[in-house]
């Protein structure tokens, strides 16, 4: 029996992409409206007693220099408490975790958590110029790619993981993304396409990487015992965990795993009282193809060093041992930092309810059905890992089992 003190009663996403025509504020409003209109039995915004806004780099990426009010002030909820969360790539999922803690404390009954990131209001060169930030010597030249690519090199060296296996992750996630109406990219690719795409950061080609994407996503959570007011099919928070690691790259001990993920997963499984084999569906952090392969190992879906074989044998396919990234993952859907984790939670909400066809989106329901995973045990796992030095990770386990 899991923790189950919190229920998710509604979720909402906006179509991810290069939203050149949308302000940050507009993305937030849309995600919010999609969420409250998605609550099965209807929802009165006055029920929201507190809010959390997850946005990783508002200063760097967009116009916001953020405080909590940037959310509530834009959606007509000014007055209620609102906190801004920033925590690297797990910003969205950590916002969700903090909202859960807030409601579980008993101080609030119902809360809104909304993640949004404006990634495309700056040029690619401006975004990359983050490589000049941080410690001027020890972090000189450090971008997301330069933190993950060395992991790929070492994983290949120690375990014989291949570039083909990495490309298979991209192929699978793009295949899934075709059927996700919210996805930034909706086309299939081949292993050859990955190899032919430009070398970005060896050994990663362009199609081994997730894109730069604008997006927003939200969820409404409440005390588990109040869920029936809003829906007959709530999804419960069975457990969560957050793991951290040291800050600088040179302080890392093992370049074949993300120890923060291992720590987060351990906490989450223990809190949920389940094992990795109980997970039916997972939305994991595939910022790069190698990341997903290492995630299989860190999250316990396979043994250390066997992540390459796991994808090769189709075990993470939609009809595999565990359906990983049915939404298309970061690679296909995009990775608007603050929105990513909450969008993953939204996807799992639909997956566990087996109603992806009814996800309130813009997609064709018959197409949506093609990404429904088989739900046997009723558990879904959400995972993010990142931050400078790949030093933090959040894992959330959701269940439809009361």
């Amino acid at each position, binding site marked *: 029996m899991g923790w189950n003190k919190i229920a998710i009663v509604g979720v909402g996403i906006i179509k991810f992409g290069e939203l050149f025509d949308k302000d940050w504020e507009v993305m937030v409003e849309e995600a919010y409206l999609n969420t409250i209109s998605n609550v099965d039995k209807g929802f009165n915004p006055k029920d929201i007693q507190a809010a959390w806004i997850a946005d990783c780099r508002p200063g760097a990426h967009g116009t916001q220099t953020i405080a909590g009010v940037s959310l509530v002030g834009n959606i007509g909820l000014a007055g209620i408490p609102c906190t801004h969360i920033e925590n690297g790539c797990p910003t969205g999922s950590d916002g969700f975790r903090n909202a859960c803690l807030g409601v579980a404390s008993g101080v609030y009954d119902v809360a809104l958590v909304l993640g949004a990131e404006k990634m495309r209001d700056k040029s690619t060169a401006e975004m990359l*110029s983050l490589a000049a930030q941080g410690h*001027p*010597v020890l972090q*000189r030249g450090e971008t997301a*790619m330069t933190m993950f*690519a*060395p992991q790929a090199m*070492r994983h290949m060296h120690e375990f014989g993981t291949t570039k083909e296996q990495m490309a298979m992750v991209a192929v699978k996630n793009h295949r899934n993304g075709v059927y996700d109406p919210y996805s930034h990219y909706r086309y299939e690719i081949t292993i050859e396409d990955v190899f032919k795409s430009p070398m970005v950061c060896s050994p990663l080609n362009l199609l081994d990487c997730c894109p730069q994407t604008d997006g927003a996503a939200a969820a409404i959570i409440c005390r588990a015992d109040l869920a029936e007011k809003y829906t007959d099919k709530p999804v419960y928070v069975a457990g969560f965990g957050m793991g951290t690691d*040291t800050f600088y790259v040179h302080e890392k001990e093992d370049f074949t795993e993300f120890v923060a993920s291992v720590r987060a997963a351990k906490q989450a499984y223990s809190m949920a009282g389940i094992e990795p084999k109980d997970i039916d569906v997972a939305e994991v952090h595939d910022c790069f193809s190698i990341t997903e392969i290492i995630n299989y190992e860190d999250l316990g879906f396979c043994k250390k060093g066997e992540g390459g074989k796991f994808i090769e044998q189709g075990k993470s396919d939609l009809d595999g041992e565990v359906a990983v990234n049915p939404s298309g993952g970061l690679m296909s859907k995009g990775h608007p930092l603050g929105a990513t984790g909450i969008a993953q939670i939204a996807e799992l909400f639909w997956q566990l309810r087996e109603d992806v066809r009814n996800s309130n989106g813009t997609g064709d329901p018959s197409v949506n059905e093609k990404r429904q995973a088989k739900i046997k045990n009723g558990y879904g796992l959400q995972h993010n890992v990142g931050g400078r030095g790949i030093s933090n990770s959040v894992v959330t386990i959701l269940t439809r089992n009361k």
Partner: protein
Amino acid sequence: MAVGIVGYGVYIPKSRIKREEIAKVWGGRGKGENAVLNENEDIITMAIEASVNAFEHSGLADVKEIDAIYLGTDSPPNIEHSSIGVIAQTLGARQDIEVMDFTTSTRAGIAALKACVDAVKAGRIKYGLVIASDYRPASPGSNMEMFFGGGAGAFIVGSKNTIADLEEVYSYSGNFRDNWRGQADTYVKDYEPRFTRQYGYSEYVLNSVRGLLSKTGLTIDQFQHIVFQQPDARLPIEMARKLKATPEQTKAGSIFDDIGDTGAACLFIGLSSVFDRAVLGNRVLAVSYGSGTSDALYLTVRKPIEKARKRCKPYQSYLASNSYIDYPQYLMGKGVLKKDEEPASLGVSPLSPFMWRASAELYRLIGAKCLNCGYVNFPPSQRKICIRCGNTEFKEVIFSRRGKIHTFCVNYYMPPGFESPLPIIIADLDDGVRHRALGTEMIPEEIKIDMPIELVLRKLASENNVDLYGNVFRPIRIK
């Protein structure tokens, strides 16, 4: 008291441009080649590498034995602000040492050497480090572009265990202008060479040599080796002929065809090349020249040179370690050819108090070794609690500068201001310390896990004309 050179070392940058490459662009004829700098090198980074070699060659046990650092260069990065600060911190020198800058002439290195020998003779210092490092700016298309090269040499000066003693010096100077560079000038200028060769270089060099011979009662044939300042290929040959010296005498110290006119560093490198093969009792004549001044130096080679040879990284080993570049690459290295875009502004300016707090440990690579678990925390100014065990007691350790690659990547998409492709290397040093740094002088396809590498200081960025330095990895260059 006999005072002389206890140890010597050179540094020749790896990149070479054949003079015919320059001639292809601008016309004329080019024979020989120039050693030229990459964008991340300057006289400071060259000075450090030469100094490390000189120190290792000297056999001194500890850098802290050095009481003075004298630097001679005709092309300091700053007109106001000494380059010695970065050099001294990187070498790990004491702070109560004497530091002096010598500049505005291609004889600045020899001026520094003379001053250092005098300081030892006077008993004010025991060991001094004298460095000559130069890479003078030449305008594209100028005569000087065909000739100017970069390099550095360093001597440890002292009175014990000298490999060569400075016996006598004779200087000759006057008011003559052949090369000059005003404060607003980007490049060195020159006047009509047919005039300046005769009334400048020749006049002063011949007078200083003749003065020295007369002062010492020696004749030119009594010197086994002669090294002239080498602003071009012709002048030293002419001097030798006029002084009745043989080509055999000037052979060992002739470097112009290999690396070009290295200005203030020329005699240091030429002398080092001589020392690489000189034997006990050899007399060596070295003759400097810079804008109307020439010094003639008489040195004799001592016995310790034989034993010290095994600690030496010879000039020839640097010559053999080279990489030819074309004219556009050469211009990029000089920063003349670059994209018209603003480099990304640094998160922390090189002027920030942050760099003042951190520079010593970042340049010298000083770590804090935990007295409980042994983990080496870095950087120590930020790590007062061991990240592995939580202990708060440490011992200072200096990192090994060599190791092997643990893992790496090469980033092909860097923002403005960064070299691209850019290798990023995570390596385990020989002492077990793990370190992460950028790579330099690496061919992306050749980088492999377990490849041996070494740490060298390089210029990482500039902001507001202030340079930011840091250690980077390169494949081990001279074994």
